[in-house]
């Protein structure tokens, strides 16, 4: 590990940029290309890069397995929850117009929440899958 200085320093600089970029893609997705799917994948790619260079154990310290699993489940829950909320507020399932005082704002909130749910799920799923593949077979070698 001691001779991997270049990789480690480079990754230390790159990973925060990747994570920040993922958030940019997520919240700029209404105005330009981007959205939950892309943002989730990019965020996961940042964590995976960290794991590749610093080892799985340290990656799991930064981003524990249980967090990844929780994210994978809670994103879908958030998505479905927005639908339930619009039902409770008197609209149809996933009809965001009732979420706020006027339909435009409602649609904005709905899309924001739904995309957030997509991002959380995709990010959690990708990181979970990577952890499982990376950890497989190492415990007996």
């Amino acid at each position, binding site marked *: 590990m001691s001779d991997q200085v270049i990789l480690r320093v480079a990754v230390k600089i790159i990973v925060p940029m990747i994570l920040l970029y993922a958030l940019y893609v997520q919240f700029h997705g209404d*105005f*330009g*290309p981007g959205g939950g*799917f892309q943002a989730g*994948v990019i965020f996961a790619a940042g964590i995976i890069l960290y794991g590749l260079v610093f080892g799985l154990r340290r990656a799991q310290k930064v981003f524990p397995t249980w967090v990844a699993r929780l994210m994978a489940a809670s994103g879908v829950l958030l998505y479905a929850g927005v639908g339930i909320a619009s039902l409770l507020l008197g609209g149809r399932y996933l009809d965001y117009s009732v979420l706020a005082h006027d339909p435009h704002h409602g649609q904005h909130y709905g899309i924001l929440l739904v995309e957030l749910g997509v991002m959380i799920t*995709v990010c959690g799923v990708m990181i979970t*899958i990577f952890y499982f*593949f990376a950890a497989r*077979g190492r415990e007996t070698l």
Partner: protein
Amino acid sequence: MRILGLYNYWIFIFLMMVGFYILISRRNLVKKILGLNIFQTSVFIFYISLGKITGGTAPILVEGESEVVYSNPLPHVLILTAIVVGVSTTAVALSLVVRIKEAYGTIEGAEINAMDNRMPPP
């Protein structure tokens, strides 16, 4: 002119058939998955090409201009989700390959079949 409008469909079909050929002719399971991915991507490209309008631009609305031609956003939406779903299902297939390797010691389809036929083991 007709050919200029159709040749890319033929290339998609060619790609699809290459993927299909890898899938049915290669015995190695990882190779089969790669073939399946090529097949899948060719379908994606086919869908996206259907949404293209000549002279169109990406379907992101430009403020204040009404003369802009936009390409069809619907195939984009369908394929956008399909790509992410595709990689997830590929991950499931790969984990199946890992388990097969652990159980049989090989990922060659022919050997797996032969081992199954040789049951019970000596």
